[in-house]
């Protein structure tokens, strides 16, 4: 019988079956379940696969590269914005190349279901000049993992696997292949390519440039890029990754009117595209994310009327694709849908009943009449919901760690009473370095670390900050007189308001750690955390 798996789980199982030795990741929707599946898999213990969460995406990718350096197969997993954080190592490891197979899995979130933007990771793949694989469905996602690792080793390049929310979070029946053994340790025959001093880097960059031709040749013959030409010449479709499914949903009953090029491997197969272009009167490009393929095609063939897609307004430029959008762009009649009855009101997400973040926001809100209502710099996590009514505490949310540094910049400009609110995991992910900036200049800001002992937003994973925040802050150089703790409970409200008021009056850097576990942690987890904290102090 088939195994029923989420797209993310299919990728995870595919990686295990392809001989994985370690997965490195920081959680982020829609990528999280890939790592969690491997953490829970029975095979993981047996095969001694590394699965512990990393502190952020950059540390994760570097560790994966380190494992690859030893000749073993490693995977690094993140959401799209995580690749911004890891982009330094990503851009440079395409120059050095890898040793053991290294697959970088990045999950994009078109429509921003749980994200700040809908950036398209294929741009990064192109930027770094590495092969990109983009499976169209869950079975292909499983199958492609074997290929991805083999291909990475063959080319000595990292391979980018680009997926999107809908593939990640949809289940389907999957057939498994037999499992390949893990690689033995085998250090690189020549390590100089990993030492990117200019003389080595120049050589490596030349090599990378030359690989481009080979990559395109592979794309031409890849079974993941299938070209079907039909007699009817009216419409040719280029369907990338999951977009292929939306196309097939509309035309699978009778495909004879359409020529189709399915793309699941980049760089683009130029010859196949030319063939399709010559064969058809009109070309529709259907891709999830930015119009990256369409833009290239306009450039290949000059802008003309023949190529249609997002740039020509045939498909919306923003948001996720769906079968109706794609059907419309193909000129296939779509039933006029009924509209949502007016009576239905929106139901945005909100903080859980009994969440400590809420009590913290109530404390801050009490002081807003004194300090002004635009002084609170926020960050990413459950507490970001404090930017919504009825709380309305937080004014900004940009990227992980930006609360502290934006507060500092605003204070540099003369803003008084600047407050940064940051979660424990976001603090260790990207807040610590910014805090050192603030320490260095003794910036007049108050940093509140809302410590719930979990990476709550993404499903309450274990936070590496647990039990370490005090020592980290002291180690970075926060003055002990201005490193305070509070317990955000209703009964402590007045006391907490006084504490915050006092620290705001201090014209230097203060850090307040607001400690209360996330209510979604089980009793067992809370006990574990308690004993961990005890063992660390």
């Amino acid at each position, binding site marked *: *019988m*088939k195994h*029923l798996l989420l797209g993310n789980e299919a990728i995870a199982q595919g990686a295990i079956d392809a001989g994985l030795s370690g997965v490195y990741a920081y959680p982020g*929707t*829609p990528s*999280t*379940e890939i790592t969690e599946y491997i953490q829970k898999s029975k095979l993981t213990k047996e095969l001694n696969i590394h699965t512990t969460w990393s502190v952020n995406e950059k540390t994760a990718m570097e560790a994966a590269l380190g494992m690859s350096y030893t000749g073993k197969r490693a995977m690094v997993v993140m959401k799209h914005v995580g690749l911004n954080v890891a982009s330094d190592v990503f851009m440079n490891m395409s120059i050095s190349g890898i040793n053991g197979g290294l697959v970088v899995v990045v999950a994009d979130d078109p429509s921003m*279901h*749980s994200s700040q933007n809908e950036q398209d990771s294929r741009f990064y793949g192109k930027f770094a000049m590495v092969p990109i694989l983009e499976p169209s*469905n869950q079975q292909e996602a499983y199958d492609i993992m074997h290929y991805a690792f083999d291909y990475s080793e063959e080319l000595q390049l990292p391979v980018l696997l680009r997926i999107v929310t*809908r*593939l990640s*979070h*949809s*289940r*389907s*029946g999957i057939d498994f292949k037999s499992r390949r053994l893990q690689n033995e340790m085998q250090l690189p025959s020549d390590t100089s390519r990993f030492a990117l001093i200019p003389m080595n880097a120049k050589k490596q960059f030349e090599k990378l440039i030359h690989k481009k031709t080979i990559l395109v040749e592979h794309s031409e013959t890849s079974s993941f890029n299938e070209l079907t030409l039909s007699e009817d010449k009216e419409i040719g479709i280029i369907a990338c990754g*999951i977009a*292929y*499914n*939306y196309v*097939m*949903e509309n035309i*699978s009953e009778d495909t004879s009117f359409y020529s189709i090029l399915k793309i699941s491997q980049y760089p683009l197969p130029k010859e196949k595209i030319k063939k399709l272009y010559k064969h058809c009167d009109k070309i529709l490009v259907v891709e999830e994310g930015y119009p990256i393929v369409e833009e290239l095609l306009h450039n290949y063939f000059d802008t003309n009327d023949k190529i249609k897609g997002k740039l020509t307004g045939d498909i919306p430029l923003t948001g996720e694709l*769906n*079968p*109706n959008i794609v*059907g419309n762009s193909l000129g296939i009649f*779509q*039933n*006029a*849908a*009924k*509209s*949502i*009855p007016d*009576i*239905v*009101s*929106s*139901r*945005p*997400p*909100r*903080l*859980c009943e009994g969440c400590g973040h809420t009590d913290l926001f109530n404390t801050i809100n009490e002081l807003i009449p004194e300090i002004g209502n635009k002084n609170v710099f926020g960050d990413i996590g*459950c507490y970001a*919901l404090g930017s919504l009514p009825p709380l309305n505490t937080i004014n900004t949310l940009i990227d992980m760690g930006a609360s502290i540094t934006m507060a500092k910049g605003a204070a540099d400009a003369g803003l008084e009473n600047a407050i940064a609110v940051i979660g424990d995991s976001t603090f260790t992910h990207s807040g610590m370095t910014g805090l050192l900036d603030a320490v260095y200049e003794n910036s007049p800001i108050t940093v509140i670390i809302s410590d719930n002992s979990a990476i709550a*937003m*993404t*499903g309450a994973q274990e936070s590496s900050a647990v039990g370490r925040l005090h020592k980290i802050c002291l180690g970075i150089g926060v003055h002990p007189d201005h490193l305070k703790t509070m317990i955000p409970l209703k009964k402590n409200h007045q006391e907490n308001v006084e504490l915050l008021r006092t620290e705001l009056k201090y014209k230097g850097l203060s850090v307040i750690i607001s400690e209360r576990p996330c209510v979604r942690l089980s009793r067992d987890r809370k006990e574990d955390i308690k004993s961990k904290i005890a063992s660390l102090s």
Partner: protein
Amino acid sequence: MKTNIILSGVGGQGILTIAAVLDAAALSENLFIKQSEVHGMSQRGGAVQSHVRISDKEVYSDLIPEGKADLILSVEPMELLRYIPFLNKNGWLVTDSNPFINTTNYPEKQDLYEQIKKYPYHVIIDATDIAKKIGNSKVANMVLLGAASNIIPLSEDSLLNAIRSLFKHKSDKIVNLNLEAFFEGKKIAKEFTDLTVNK
């Protein structure tokens, strides 16, 4: 045969248990299945839905096209109405009557029922109350699944087996509670659906 089902509710209400039963039952009948779900931000008390597609042929899109859902099964009445654009003209609406109110502008529940009753094929039942009477309000979702089971083209055996295997690691008592909930839902809905269809 292709059946499109939308499951809806509020993050935390457990619609994924219903999805898991449908998935397992469909798989045991060797059918093709795609079932998309919501993870992330919306799970914090926001609107969530799952698209379940079952077919004897390959299913392409993970999302159901608008106007193509045969059934919307909801654990909450307002969340049912949110997915009306997906309903096909002979589609069924099955919902728990109990509102989950976590917003300030939640409509009057009678007005919600009025809206739902505008569609010919609907079942509104107090699944939570039935579940409580059986012994645990948590099995309301199985009451609803039972209520919709006549409309779902999967055999009762596969559904029951799926329920058994889903809960067997917990305890026999929990398995039986869920089975009882299923049967109770089925019984009540039968009277209801017969009535509605005959109208």
